[in-house]
Structure formats: structure tokens, C-alpha cells
């Protein structure tokens, strides 16, 4: 039974950090070895999961969703109504996407997603989050000075564009739908998906490049 005792879990953390080997690779190895030897998980499952997050699950998933929303108005309506349901049409549901919300960029609104309290992210539809998304600097500054943060990503917004920052404080997760760039008429779904960057779906990228 979980204890729900904050002092106990804090003491366990202090004890583990003080007494386990200091190399994080060895710490993870200790967890993996013990879990496998106790029969709680098969080594092959870990290997396969790693392979899955390398090859099958990543921002290309979100990019397909965004591209579809550009060419299929009914899908776009479903996506904006309930993104958690809409992505099931792709089989992309999973970790932290049941309450997914799609927020669309417009000429005068830019959306930026963050999680200041931990690092919540719609993993199943965007893959593993970039390291900067989990960094203290991004978590601290994204809400207080989003324009300065965007400038560090090379995005300089004028004041006629309003930024809406989404801090993922509950179990809702956010997917930014960037604007479809000009010069892409008649492109295939694959061509369109290829220009959707991961960062544009977090909000640290804005004007997609057509080349």
C-alpha cells in the first residue's frame, strides 16, 4: 500500500541519493536489474519500448494530425472540439492524451505550451519531450517572459500578436496547431506533415518553412 506520507517519501529520496552510486546510468541499471530479476518486467519489453520511442512514436505523429487538420475541415472541427478523441482516428492515443486540447495559432494569436510544476507533455502524440521543455529555465521563464524565451528560439513576435501560454497544471494536455504556410496548395498529406516541426506543435516555432 502506498503510504501517502510526504515525510517518508522525502526521507527515502534522501537516503537513496546518499547511498546509491552517484552515476545516474548505474542507478537506472540497478532499477532495471532488480525489476527484471524480480520478474516484474522482461528485459525484451524494455528494449522494445526504447525501439518504439525511437522509431514509431515521435513528433511525426502530431505532424500527421496537423496536416490532416489543414486539408480536412471536418477533421479540424473534430480536433478542435475534442483532440483526445480525434487522434484516436490515427491510433495515436496513449500516455497523457485522453484530455488533449488542440489550440490553433492565428495571425494575431500565438500559443505556447509549458508545464511549470513538472513537465507534462502529450507523449503519445509528440514522442519524448525535448530536454529544454523539461529544463528549469523553460519552466520558470515560459510563463513570465514568453517573448524573451521565443526570441531565444529565433521567434520575434511583434506586439500585435498576442501570446497565450498554456500551463498544463491538470490532466489536460495541449497541442498547438500551427498555421498552414502559403505556397502549399495541392500538397499531399505526406508533404504537409513533413514541414510541421515538433517545436511548432509546442509553440516555440511559428512560421513553418515550405522548402
Amino acid at each position, binding site marked *: 500500500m*502506498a503510504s501517502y506520507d510526504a515525510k517518508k517519501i522525502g526521507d527515502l529520496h534522501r537516503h537513496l541519493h546518499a547511498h546509491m552510486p552517484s552515476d545516474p546510468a548505474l542507478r537506472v541499471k540497478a532499477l532495471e536489474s532488480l525489476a527484471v530479476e524480480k*520478474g516484474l518486467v522482461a528485459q525484451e519489453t524494455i528494449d522494445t519500448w526504447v525501439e518504439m520511442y525511437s522509431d514509431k512514436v515521435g513528433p511525426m505523429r502530431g505532424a500527421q494530425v496537423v496536416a490532416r487538420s489543414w486539408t480536412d475541415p471536418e477533421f479540424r472541427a473534430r480536433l478542435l472540439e475534442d483532440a483526445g478523441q480525434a487522434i484516436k482516428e490515427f491510433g495515436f492515443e496513449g500516455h497523457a492524451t*485522453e484530455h488533449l486540447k488542440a489550440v490553433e495559432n492565428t495571425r494575431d494569436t500565438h500559443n505556447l505550451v509549458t508545464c511549470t510544476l513538472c513537465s507534462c507533455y502529450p507523449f503519445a502524440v509528440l514522442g519524448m519531450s525535448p530536454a529544454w521543455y523539461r529544463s528549469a*529555465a523553460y519552466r520558470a521563464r515560459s510563463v513570465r517572459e514568453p517573448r524573451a524565451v521565443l526570441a531565444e528560439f529565433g521567434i520575434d513576435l511583434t506586439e500585435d500578436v498576442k501570446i497565450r501560454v498554456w500551463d498544463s497544471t491538470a490532466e489536460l494536455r495541449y497541442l498547438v496547431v500551427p498555421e498552414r504556410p502559403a505556397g502549399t496548395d495541392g500538397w499531399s498529406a505526406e508533404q504537409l506533415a513533413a514541414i510541421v516541426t515538433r517545436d511548432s506543435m509546442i509553440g516555440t516555432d511559428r512560421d513553418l518553412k515550405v522548402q
Partner: protein
Amino acid sequence: MDGPHDLGGKDGFGPVKTEAPPFAHDWERRQWALSKNVPLPDGTIDWWRHGIENMDPATYLSLPYFEKWCLNEIAHRIDRGVFTLDEVLTGTPTSRQEPPAEPLDMDGTLARLRANNTDFRVDMDAPPAFAVGDTVRTTNTPTVGHTRLPAYARGHTGTIVAHHGGHLYADAGAKGEHRGEHLYTVEFTASELWGTDAPDTTCLDLWEPYLASA
């Protein structure tokens, strides 16, 4: 709790390193896989989060993200009796599950990922206290224990922009109580939160107990 994890608006961290890849080391990939595939009986996501929040603050701010996950997975398994401290420190299991877990192939892991799609909605008897368009003020009283109202949004006035019905209440979940509260998205202006004249806003998903009419 006003822990080291509550980073919104905090100063001193310098520029964002915009180029870092999702995983810098193999051990990070494996930790992610372990977190998603080693079963953790009972407990709640918010009790899990509260474990990390209760790390020593200097340690919290120093350790890489997935190293905190690793320590937290171990700490929670000791807390629940899945591991003993001795097993972890010696690396020698004193009991094992029979039969051991079957390996999953790629289809199996893809299915496990899809099945991980937890629904946090809860049917509520009580009607919502607020409606879209209402002006609300967040509490300015710090919470003992886990909460999802960040310190930077305490004591501030915002507008309800969405009502999501009842959702499992994080503050209770971290104590093992599975109960819902009405959940809202509340939008705050930059001038309200930070005193700047930027045209920007911040939206937070906040449960009803955090809010009062303003």
C-alpha cells in the same frame, strides 16, 4: 507544497538551451521505458509527483530529469513494499514474481501505450460554482501537501474560459483519495500576473477549491 518543483516565474536559471535532444543518454531511454513498463501497484499519479516534489531542493535542482524519475520509481516501490531498501542497495532480490512477466513485442508495446490513455473525468453531483466568463480570484493561502495551483498564480484574478466538468482532484489524489472537483481553465493577463503591459495571457487548469468569486 512550496517545493523546488514550483518553478513558474522563478529567476536565475539563465537562457534556455534550445538545441538539446529528447534523450542525451541511453540510460534516459531505459528509464522512460522502465517507468512505463514496470508495474506500480495502487497509488496515484499525484502521489507519484509528490514524491519528486519532496526531494531535497538542492538535489531536485541539480539532478537530470530522468535521474529524478529513477530515484522516484525506486522510492515509491520501497514505500509500497515492492522493493526493500536492502534489495535496492545490494542489487539482490529476496523474492520474485512467478511466473515472471512475459516479454512484449512491438505490437504489444504499441498496445500498452494506447491502453495508457487514462480518463480523469468524474461524474459530479454538485453543480459547478462558476461559468465561462466569470471572474474568479485564486486563493493566496499556500497548501500543505500536493497542489497544482502554482505559487505565481496565487491571489490573482482571472476569467473562466472553459469548464471541463468533474476531474479527479490532484490535491486529494496525492493523499490517496479518488474524488472529483469541477475543473476550469482560467485565463490571467500578463499585467495581472507580472505587472507588465504585454498583451499576453496565461491559461491554467484549476480546480474549484482553488477559486473564489471576484
